[in-house]
């Protein structure tokens, strides 16, 4: 557990308030020894491009989070929390460092520029995020359903998408069961 840190809630970490520190024009959120950058939607692709030049060649992971029912999270002052957040995990094999980029995506306008031109490997991740969260990645060459069938309606990992369930069958008479 050397390179894995949770995003700290303010107060847990005394150094969580050093938000004046800027990296690549973006305020830095420290969590342990791992760095998290929360750029705005406009800065996002440009930042990834710059980071790539800095040696963060590998886009390890891209996933979306729906913060509908859990609004509290660490953000630099002045940044407006969106309903969605797209989290990009970057890796610099050379420097053996990881960096996490978190972009806020508003719920009423879930659009974000695609980073496929920067990191071709983000292709499947963006398709997955579109499929499960409905985040529209503009400029993606083939933004189609990846895990769900083409004709599926809705985006099941959104928090307001209902969880379907088939009741488990038991033998006990119904009136006994709650």
């Amino acid at each position: 557990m050397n390179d894995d840190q949770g995003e700290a809630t303010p107060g847990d970490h005394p150094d969580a308030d050093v938000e004046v520190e800027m990296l690549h024009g973006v305020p830095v959120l420290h969590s342990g020894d791992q760095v998290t950058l929360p750029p705005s939607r406009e800065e996002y692709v440009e930042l990834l491009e710059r980071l790539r030049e800095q040696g963060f060649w590998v886009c390890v992971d891209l996933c979306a989070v729906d913060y509908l029912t859990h609004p509290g999270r660490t953000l630099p002052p002045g940044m407006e929390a969106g309903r969605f957040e797209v989290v990009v995990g970057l890796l610099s094999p050379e420097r053996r460092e990881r960096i996490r980029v978190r972009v806020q995506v508003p719920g009423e306008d879930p659009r974000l520029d695609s980073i496929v031109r920067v990191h071709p490997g983000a292709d499947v991740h963006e398709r997955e995020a579109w499929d499960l969260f409905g985040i529209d990645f503009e400029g993606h060459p083939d933004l189609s359903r990846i895990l769900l069938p083409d004709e599926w309606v809705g985006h099941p990992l959104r928090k307001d998408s209902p969880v379907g369930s088939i009741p488990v069958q038991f033998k006990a008479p119904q009136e006994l069961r709650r």
Partner: protein
Amino acid sequence: MGYLEGFKVTFAQIFGERVTTPYPKEKTPKALRQHGRHVLNRYEDGMEKCIGCELCAGVCPARCIYVRGADNPMDDPVSPGERYGYVYEINYLRCIHCDLCVEACPTEAITESKLFEFSFTNRADAIYTKAELVVDDEGMPRHLPWEDWRPGEEVDTSAWMRATAPSGSAAYEGVVAWSGELGFGVRAPEADQVTRDAITPPPSDGHDDHGHDDHDDHGHDDHGHDDHGHEDHGHDDHGGGH
């Protein structure tokens, strides 16, 4: 000639041992900790251990357990406590045999047998009720028509519980931490770490494929319950807790 050397490898196998077994005829020995279909245990006086607390149902990630507790009838109590499991059902179409229920059960009422060979012809058969789950008067799991029991397979139903019993604390190594099993008494605990980490001489019969022996104090020559097809499962395991 690289083309030809491979032929030696395949040819040599003709004289090697067969690693497969004619399965339904013969079974390979099952691991001691194997997770199989559950049993509901009784105390030695015949009382059921289940107290209807529903911890197992609560922890089940597959939601396949349904428990309904009820107050014990005063004149004819089913379990020693205040309440007992009035309804207890497991739907084996959903069970993933993770054995979290076994770990959760505070009275060691639910444990797992080694049986995984059961196939149903209808969905109703897959829903086991108390009638099927509670052990019989000898403390043995009930044999249902669609289950493939072999002699010796029903013996060791508490192994996973014993393996997990110390809850990670080395201080509790070797401490008997469970109530007895009907017909078997209180079984010996798994050995302490010094013993289990040590290299033991290979077993003479070469049959004990699992290399662990939960009853060190009974001597090493007896691997009865570990061998499939072993008739007398009632070896000195019985003596352990009496």
